[in-house]
Structure formats: C-alpha cells, structure tokens
C-alpha cells in the first residue's frame, strides 16, 4: 500500500476476489513470518527437538509393521517392502492430517491476531500447509535414505516428490478454506475433524495397499483423492502403486472445485467471523 492509493473499506459483500488476491500477495512476507514462527516454536524446549519430525512416522511405521505384517499377516504385494510402503503413506498422511487439523483450528487459534490486526485472513490457513511441509520433506528425505538402506528400488521420479507435497498442500488448503471459518463460528466442527480423519485413514491405502480392495469396487476406491495423494508419493519415490489417471483427474478437479467454493465460503464468512469468533 503506498500513499498514492486510496483504499476503500466497504461492507464485506462488496469486495472482489481479485482485490483479495492482490491483498494476499501484498502481505506475502507475513506468511513467511507466521510460518517461521510455527516451525521454530514447534520443537523448542523439547529434548528430542527436530528428531521428533522423524520419530513420528518411524514409530508409527514400526507399529503398523508389527500389527499388520506380523499379527495380521496381510498378503505380500510382491516385491514391495511393507515398511517402505507404510512409511511413504504415513509421511503424506501425517502431513495431510496436520494441515486439516491445525488449519481447521487456525482461525480460532489466531483469534487474538484476527481481532486486533488487519491483514487478509486468507493468509492464516496457509501457515499450517507451509510449516507442515517442512516436516514432510524431511520425512521424504529419510524415506529416500531408508529405501537405499533396504536395498529397494528408488525411482528417478523421486525428484518430483516436492510437487506431490505441494499438491497435497493445495488440496489441504482448499479443504481448510471451508473448515476454518465454519469452525470459528460452529465449534463442534473441531470435534468432527479428528473423527473424520480417523475414518478417512481406514478408507485410504495408508496401512494397506489398494490391491487388497475387492476388484469390483476398487475403481471407486481409487478415485478417493486421499488414495491418489498417498499413492502418488509412493509412485514417485518407489515406483509402485501408481494411481490411475482417472484418479489423478478427479484429484485435480476436486482441488479446483474445493478452491473455488472454499474461497467463496471463506470470503463470505470473513466479514462477520471477526465479530463471532
């Protein structure tokens, strides 16, 4: 904002999307500042510190391996090491879960900022995808190391892993555009989210491969955007579990639609949620 521009503050319903996007861009430095705050605070005062980023997926993978391979003896998928399979899925899943949970609560958590300082509120839900992506990328690097350690095949397409992370971040942000303002006003959503996340985990190929799903419904199952996300990561790193193109298509369309609808909802609620948070 420079002194030559005259800024006009109108009742919320009268602002355009283009104005809002320009406003977000003008505040881009604030996004990095808030993301940095999120990242640096997360592991301060812990003994394990940044190692915790890796311990979470590693420990979860270990538990799942014991339960599903040793206790439950799920059928081997031919050449694929279960721990690598599980770890790659878990890394993405934990990233996605964090975006949705932290992002869904982001407006409430930052209510003191929202009610006291002026900046585009659209920025707030961006912070958790950015901050969490750092953790995810570190996990992926660990995955690469593990893959080499296990002697398994590491696909050259691993260089596309950051793109997958970015796509997941976008998808998560689009969902949070709905959840965050709704949660700010109707707090029971924050109770529903963890529950929905749990269910989604069982309906997605996180702990078991999609090949275990009965053939007649597998096509539907694989259209699930979460399945697409998780399998995409497996495919770029390990070269296995390629998601069907239709699934990728659904994912892209879903992201676009959610984005469009989400910005609409968010911007409509933005005006009054400050007064109702």
């Amino acid at each position, binding site marked *: *904002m*420079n*002194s030559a*521009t*005259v*800024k*006009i*503050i*109108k*009742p*919320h*319903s009268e602002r355009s999307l283009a104005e809002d996007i320009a406003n977000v861009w003008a505040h881009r*430095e*604030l996004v990095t*500042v808030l993301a940095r*705050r999120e990242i*640096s*605070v997360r592991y*301060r*005062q812990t003994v394990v510190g940044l190692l915790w980023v890796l311990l979470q997926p590693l420990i979860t993978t270990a538990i799942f391996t014991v339960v599903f391979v040793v206790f439950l003896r799920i059928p081997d998928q031919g050449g694929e090491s279960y721990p690598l399979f599980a770890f790659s899925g878990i890394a993405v899943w934990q990233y996605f879960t964090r975006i949705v949970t932290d992002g869904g609560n982001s407006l409430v958590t930052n209510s*003191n*900022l*929202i*009610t*006291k*300082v*002026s*900046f585009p509120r659209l920025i707030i839900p961006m912070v958790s995808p950015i901050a969490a992506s750092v953790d995810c990328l570190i996990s992926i690097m660990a995955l690469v190391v593990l893959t080499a350690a296990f002697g398994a095949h590491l696909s050259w397409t691993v260089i596309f892993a950051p793109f997958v992370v970015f796509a997941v971040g976008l998808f998560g942000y689009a969902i949070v555009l709905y959840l965050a303002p*709704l949660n700010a*006003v*109707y*707090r*029971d959503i924050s109770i529903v989210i963890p529950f929905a996340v749990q269910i989604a985990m069982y309906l997605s190929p996180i702990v078991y491969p999609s090949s275990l799903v009965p053939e007649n419904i597998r096509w539907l199952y694989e259209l699930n955007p979460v399945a697409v996300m998780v399998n995409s990561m497996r495919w770029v790193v390990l070269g296995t579990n390629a998601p069907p193109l239709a699934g990728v298509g659904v994912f892209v369309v879903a992201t676009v639609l959610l984005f469009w*609808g989400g910005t*609409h*909802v968010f911007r*409509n*609620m933005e*005006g*009054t949620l*400050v*007064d*109702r948070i």
Partner: protein
Amino acid sequence: MAAAIEVLGVSKKYFRGVHLTHTTLLSGAISQWGKRLLGKGDDDYSPVDQEPFWALQDVSLTIERGDVVGIVGRNGSGKSTLLKIISQITAPSTGEVRLNGRTGTLLEVGTGFHAELSGRENVYLNGAILGMTRSEIDRKFDEIVDFSGIEAFIDTPVKRYSSGMHTRLAFSVAAHLEPEILIIDEVLAVGDAEFQKKCIGKMDQVAKGGRTVLFVSHNMSAVEQLCNRAVWLDSGKLVLDTRDIYEAATQYFQSSAGSAESGEVTSKSAPPLENEFFSLKSFRLCNAAGETINGPVPANLPVSVEIRLDVKKTHSSLLLGYSVANETGDQVYWSMFSDQDDTIASRLKMGEAILTSPVPPRFLNQGRYNFHFLSSLYNMGWLAAPGQTPYSVPLRIEGGMSDSMFWRQHRPGVVAPVLPWTLDNVPLEP
C-alpha cells in the same frame, strides 16, 4: 489534497445474546450452510435476537492529513468499533471508509508475541504483523531495543519477562512504525508513569512529524496535550466534532459527572446529615444578594459558600468548611471556618448557625467545580468527609476572567488569578 480518512455514513450492527445456540447443532446449521455456500449467508442469523444492537449509527467525519484526533466517549459508545472499522479489522454494516495512506494500528500492545520466542524474534514477528518489512525492522532494530530499555534481556524468551518489560518492548515496536495514519486504542493505559510519559512523548513526536493520528483515550489530559481535534461518540452516534479541545473535555466531564444542577442541597432534598454535634440544614452557593446560584457565573461575580446548621453540642475541635475539586478530580483548595480564628468552634452557640465565606473572585479558572461540605473533629475523625456526603454543589465559571483584551480564551492552569504587576516599581493601574 485528499483527506486522510473519510468516514461516510458508517453503521455497525451486532446481534446480542446467544444467537447461535440452536445453530451450533449440525442439523440446524446445515440449511444455513447451504445458503452460505451460495454466498447469501452473511447476515442470515437465527431469529433468536430480533433486535440488533447498533454499535455505530450513521457516523460520518472527515479527517485531514496532519490532524491529531482524540476520540472520546463512555465505555460502549462505539469508539473501539469505529477504530476497528477504520483499521479494516471488521467491516461496516453500512457506509464506507476511504483511507488515503498507509495505516498502522495499535489496538493492543504485544499482539502476536509468542511466549516461547526471544525478545529479538518477537520484535521481528510483531513488526511484521504490524506491517513493517523485514528490512525496515533490521534498520530500526537498535532504536527499538534502546527505546524499550530491555537490551540486556533481548535474547531471553518472552515468557520470562515481567509484564512491564513485555509492555515496553511491545510498545517500542509499535512506536517505530511509520505509517502515514496511526491509529491507537487506549494503549497508554498500561505501564508505569515514567513509561507513559515516554509514550506520550513519542506520540507527540509522531504527531509533530505531520502524520495523521487517531487516538482513543479516557485520559483527557493526554488528549488535551496531544490533540488538535476531538470527536465525541455517545451510544454509537457522533455527538461532537470540534477543534476546541477544552470544549470537548468539559462536555465529557459534564456527561460523566451527572451531578445536580442546583447550587443548593438542603436536608429536605437530601438525606439528613446529623451527628451528636450538629444537624446540617443546607449547603449552598449564593451571590451577593443571597440568592442561590444555579447556572454558570463569570469569574468576577462574588460567590459565597453558605452553611446553615443546627448546633446541638459544641466541641473545641469541631471543624466545618468545604473543599473544591475541579473536573479532573484535583483538589483545588480546602477552607475551614477556623483558618483565621481557631477559637471559633468554642464560640458556637446552641441552635441555628449560619456560616458564610466568600469564594475569591477572579481566582478559579474557567470550568466546572464541585464544592463539598466537610466537617471533622481535628485529629479525631471525619464527621462529613468531602465528596462522601450528598452535600455537594457544582459551580460553573465561565467568562469574566479579566478585563484585558488579551485574556479572552481559556488559559491553562488550575487557577486563574488576576495578579498585580509593577513596571519600574510603579504599580500598574487598571
């Protein structure tokens, strides 16, 4: 040159009460969500509360560049709401605001401070939140830390700071914002006296730099010191917009005092004041003809304080008199009937007594005063503490300050005596 801020017909409504009770259930909310998804949901509240509360009603004002505006009003008058709208934190329900220039808002000190981060990190965080760029903060970092006075602790986590240190650092960051329009909401109420003085000094500096400042406060003396314009809001409406700060302060005082207009309080109009020594019959202010003064008087009009009582029992240490307090609550002076003759109490006879004493003319400055009856037993305790009984009367002094053509406006000062001067040892004649 375009005005810095134009507020055009701005109103803001809120719905009171627990208007969301039955819509926090998913079932009730889903239909509303449907409407929201289609973009119509904004004002569609459930009909539990049919009458909205209008925090602001059709407020319009134009603030020129360089104005230092003090916004005053009682709690709940809409001051903070207006600031929030101008600061783009909440949107107006109707009307619009035009801003010409970069704004910096301080509604609360230390917004965004994170307890786990060090002072240094919080300066960067808070600065960014307030709208400063990183290079700006880098440039001013030393100045900011210096102003706050907590250099030694700058790398300690903020959760270890005392509340005073916290405030000093937070204010220091905000003080170094350089927006064209600075908007501040009652943040000067925090901190010790020394720090408050520093803050006012800094704000004065900002104002003198030609910036536009909007400043909400209850502290009338700060407003008088810093502002060249005062805006008074009452129940959401703009009541007064003036460049005569004194006028605004007087009106503000008047509205909050709520005292009786009559210059007389008697035992019939108020609860009787009785003790073993006397029973107070009346306490009033009167003019030379003995008539009660009920309205404003010029400073040169002779005014007397009259106390009528029924003496029941005498006591050599009985003291009777009055105190005078001004608008800001300062004690201007006390006067007791024993001040020139300390044997007077023992000469009181049983029965009715009338005490009068002139208020010195051309002594009190223009303004409103409260005269309080007081009485005590010397060194033994109050019989009637000033301001604690209903026997208080207001006095408004307006005009008549002096005959000099150079003294026509309100002159600063608690008192405004007209004093004799000599030139080359020769007294000046009027």
